[in-house]
């Protein structure tokens, strides 16, 4: 593969794209939300199980590019077991970094999510990385309908 593509498509991204984690339906989910990126047709349905304000389980279904699938998969891994407030903080940090609003990369805060920071160089692909997160944010705020990145 071309070297300069490695920033965006790291091995972890390919791995999560091929074998997305938590790629299933939660039948008795407390929150379900659909996210849609009309620009590229990416669709995601997010399922969340809550115990008080703790996310005890989270999963997704849908269809998208490698970046959006890997981002959703990584997100479910990282927010499982976190409180709503912790997830919210992660979303803010992630969003700031991938949209280039925060040049001071605090990668340790992001953990595994750091593999996605390459999208900063690809303005047209940022929405692919943030779709799952926007959906999560809306779901945690209690919005049940659907979100769109447009």
């Amino acid at each position, binding site marked *: *593969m071309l070297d*300069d*593509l490695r920033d965006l498509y790291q091995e972890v991204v390919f791995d999560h794209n091929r074998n997305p984690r938590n790629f299933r339906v939660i039948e008795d989910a407390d929150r379900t939300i659909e996210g849609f990126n009309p620009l*590229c*047709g990416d669709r995601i349905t997010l399922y969340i199980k809550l115990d008080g304000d703790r996310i005890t389980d989270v999963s997704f279904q849908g269809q998208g590019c*490698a970046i959006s699938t890997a981002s959703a998969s990584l997100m479910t891994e990282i927010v499982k077991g976190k409180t709503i407030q912790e997830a919210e903080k992660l979303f803010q940090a992630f969003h700031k970094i991938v949209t280039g609003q925060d040049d001071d990369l605090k990668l340790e805060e992001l953990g595994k999510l750091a593999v996605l920071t390459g999208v900063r160089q690809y303005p047209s692909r940022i929405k692919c990385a943030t779709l799952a997160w926007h959906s999560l944010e809306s779901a945690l705020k209690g919005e049940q309908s659907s979100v769109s990145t447009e």
Partner: protein
Amino acid sequence: MSTVPTQSPQTYPIDRIRADFPALQQQIRGKPLVYLDNAASAQKPNQVIDTLADFYRHDFSNIHRSVHTLGERATAKYEAARDTVRRFLNARQTEEIVFVRGTTEAINLVAQSFGGSQFKEGDEILISAMEHHSNIVPWQMVCQQTGARLRVVPINDHGELILEEYQRLLGSRTRLVSITHMSNALGTLNPVKEIIDLAHTREIPVLLDGAQAVPHLPVDVQALDCDFYAFSGHKLYGPTGIGVLYGKRELLEAMPPWQGGGEMIRTVTFEKTEYNELPYKFEAGTPAIAEAVGLGAAIDYVEAIGWDHIAAHEHALIEYATEMVHTIPGLGIIGTAAEKGAILSFALDRVHPHDIGTFLDHYGIAVRAGHHCAMPVMDFFKVPATARASFGIYNTLEEVDQLIHAIKEIIKVFG
């Protein structure tokens, strides 16, 4: 494929043509640019770029308003461009050529002016299932305003219009048929002559969306007998911001203006305004003057190459590209009409079009990945999006090879 080669591609002056396009001389991420996004918009030859620059350097002024020399010179060039378009479409009169911003504005003009004044509750407008959003939404808007109803002619699995269904849908309530000449998402060339003749047996006017067709084949509005024809300059190697609405004189005469302002009036008092004659009635405000002149230069450019040459060259490109992608396992072509222009829309089993687009860009290859402003087409073929390679006068068989090579690499990487 419809385009019958009458010249062998060997005689095609490809090197000279490529040399005319400065944008093609650059490298993208260290690789020579392979520009295969012509259906979205085409690159511009020096002849167009120089015409724009020269016009601004020497001849620019507002038009139709000034007695000074520059005013007269600019007006003469703007009107000469209109005559070039008339000749290009073989329209009877220059009064039938209205300059607009592009195809989108042309269709909105007809929807609002013709539709807004004619359509009544229960009337029907017929479009097809392969239309670009710009030939859907303006009709939905006028339907909402008038109570008319939008009917959609279905397509088959090859992406071809189903003519029997079209005939069935043409009825006593149909007030207008608005169909694309060539589909941007599928490449399908529609049987427009038959479509028009069938509508005319019931005296129903027909609008053709020529945005995609005009860069690839000669259009004769008199031979077609279409009532309206719309196209954009920027897909025809011309400037953005300029396009054309052709309309039969009787129809345009009967239509009310759709925008008010300067240029479109004869006299104004606070009591009453008398509208200007055609085509100025539909050209309110200062138009895209230099762009119109640039469009004239673009038309001169493609006509100098010759339609036979262009048809043969592009036919060879799409034939070869189609043959080559058939050798790639897991690749599906979206749009396999028997009559097709130089557009190859495809999807890979295991790679999303967006990833294809980003990967190809790293090989210097520009394609479009997305829904191509034709979401109903994506829904029909049950794909979220496609990758689309669209060819133009300056593309080469070697570029097709590069595309094929890059697609194979992508498949390898995604496994």
